[in-house]
């Protein structure tokens, strides 16, 4: 589904990704781990198409199509979802309004009509119950005055409503207490599907105790230095990232 080959990407004059390659198939859950500054979040932003990052080499294809020339909204409509590490506040814009606009933008792209208001509300309430979210959140400003945990649940709610083919969740576990972490993990697990791929970007293995990945990749200095199954996470937890950096510089 997602094929990344020898990807180089920069922000300003600083190169961050250096020849990164990654293959993600439908139905798989991948975890991208690595120390701060290794390029994890950059990878997420580059796949989603953030303007600040420039792809200077290599390729990204999604369902066989070259992703690099596509605008962020076009990638989203094709089925790529990014759960943000720091979801932004949009004062005065109703959460339900944004959600509905997003759902309809995708439906329009698929040649479907707009979602019926009643159907939309029913669906949103269902998903919110699953995430243990108060329905009142639908009618508040987007992320306005939300706690850290509420913002992350809101991201998962959007993902659940949009049903993307590829979901990239950037540090979704950061800043969550244990109850919120369980709710968020439950939401992610409920969306595991043979037709869907999920990439979890995380610094700690904590989330991986609740959402079990099929593959784990460790990033260091802009490329993947080690890949393995879920046991890699525990190895990392024991030995720390420094162990990998030694491998990287040796390799």
């Amino acid at each position, binding site marked *: 589904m997602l094929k990344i080959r020898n990807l180089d990407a920069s922000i300003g004059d600083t190169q961050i990704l250096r020849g990164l390659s990654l293959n993600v198939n439908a139905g798989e859950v991948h975890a991208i781990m690595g120390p701060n500054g290794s390029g994890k979040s950059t990878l997420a932003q580059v796949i*989603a198409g953030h303007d600040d990052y420039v792809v200077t080499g290599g390729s990204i294809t999604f369902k066989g199509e070259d992703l690099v020339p596509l605008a962020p909204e076009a990638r989203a409509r094709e089925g790529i979802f990014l759960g943000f590490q720091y979801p*932004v506040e*949009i004062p005065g814009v109703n959460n339900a309004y944004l959600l509905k606009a997003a759902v309809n933008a995708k439906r329009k792209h698929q040649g479907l009509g707009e979602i019926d208001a009643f159907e939309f509300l029913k669906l949103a309430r269902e998903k919110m119950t699953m995430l243990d979210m108060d329905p009142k959140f639908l009618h508040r400003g987007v992320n306005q005055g939300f706690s850290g945990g509420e913002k992350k649940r809101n991201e998962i709610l959007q993902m659940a409503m949009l049903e993307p083919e590829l979901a990239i969740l950037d540090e979704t576990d950061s800043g969550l207490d244990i109850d919120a972490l369980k709710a968020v993990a439950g939401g992610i697990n409920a969306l595991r599907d043979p037709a869907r791929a999920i990439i979890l970007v995380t610094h700690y293995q904590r989330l991986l105790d609740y959402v079990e990945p099929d593959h784990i990749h460790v990033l260091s200095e802009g490329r993947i230095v080690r890949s393995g199954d879920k046991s890699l996470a525990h190895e990392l937890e024991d030995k720390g990232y420094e162990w990998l950096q030694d491998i990287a510089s040796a390799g």
Partner: protein
Amino acid sequence: MSVETENLEQLVNRRYAHGFVTDIASEGLPPGLNEDVVRAISALKQEPEFLLEWRLRAYRQWLEMTEPEWAHVHYPRIDYNSISYYSAPKSDKDRPQSLEEVDPKLLETYDKLGIPLHERARLAGVAVDAVFDSVSVATTFKKKLSEAGVIFSSFSDAVREHPALVKKYLGSVVPQRDNYFAALNSAVFSDGSFVYIPKGVRCPMELSTYFRINAANTGQFERTLIIADEGSHVSYLEGCTAPMRDENQLHAAVVELVALDDAEIKYSTVQNWYPGDENGVGGIYNFVTKRGDCRGTNSKICWTQVETGSAITWKYPSCILRGDNSVGEFYSVAVANNYQQADTGTKMIHIGRNTSSTIVSKGISAGHAQNAYRGLVRVMPQASSARNHTQCDSLLIGKDCGAHTFPYMEIRNPSARIEHEATTSKISADQMFYCRQRGISEEDAVNMIVNGFCKEVFNELPMEFAVEAQALLNVSLEGAVG
């Protein structure tokens, strides 16, 4: 016709060549402003003596005044002698005969605003007999109002039919010499609206200029007077979201509101005069004086405005809180795009005891536009326990525009409680990326963020107006990003 006006006509006829009056009735006055022109306007409208005298006093005062220069707007000097102060109504044969003759670009905008088909013809100035529906609607409307005892008519009709009311209240809120443009308006005003709500009456419907009979061609110097008698209530809608074009560049309107004991007036405006093209050429200069007088105890006046049009806007709808416990409110969205300039805000003058005022101003600047908020809160020594809350937010789109805030406060009573909040924000790249990552286009994302920014003001608009205002904002900011 009264003897008085007959004499006037004779006077006018003597000063001009014989038959001139009929000529101007069909052709309009030649450019220029002097006492004869003021007399001619009054004669053409068959006004009573008191009104002619009133106009002449205003004219003489105007001559001694100088054009204000303090506003944060720039424009070439206006030559007041190059303006015609009375233009004749367009005859039907000069108008487009059907929508097919109307500029397609204008029709496209109507489409975006969702204006119903039958209204488009009227808005585009299609000949009257080609416009269906509106006459019968207006007739039903008038009947309902007269049953409630509400007077809602053109200003000229009110002068003829209710001269005592006009004489009592005209200029009682905005005196002739209040400011340069108000003085000019007082001398040469063409027409406008008059509303009187009798004691204890709640006006059965929202009054809109749209339904006013004989509304055609009120011209560039409009005059509106609204009186809400004791315990009455009225909501008045002015303007229209459809783009308004006019050959007259200078517009100087005056609006006066009077609220007596326990009365409430809600005045909502959507202003969308031609702003000039994207290079700043053409466009209306809109210099307006709007003021409400909360004359009675427990009275309330609420101004809500959405300003998107005009090349230059100079406008400060204000409240004089004279009655004890009176309430003044001002909610404003002012959008300036391309080369538009807006200097707008409000004045809240606290005179009575326990008076309170609320100001919520949202300024949006895009392109090369300059948008200024100018507000005055004055608490007089006798106004004990006055309260004011001011919230003044600016939103910038792009890097070549500007937002300016000029709050003035004059507090002369120590018991006053005054709060002022101001913010300036940009639509952030993060907000844009967030929306786009959810599949929403750049343009829709801007509209969504801007509408969210304006929400508190839109909430104050009557429902139908609010929906139109939102659509209007989207059209006004088209192409502002990208």
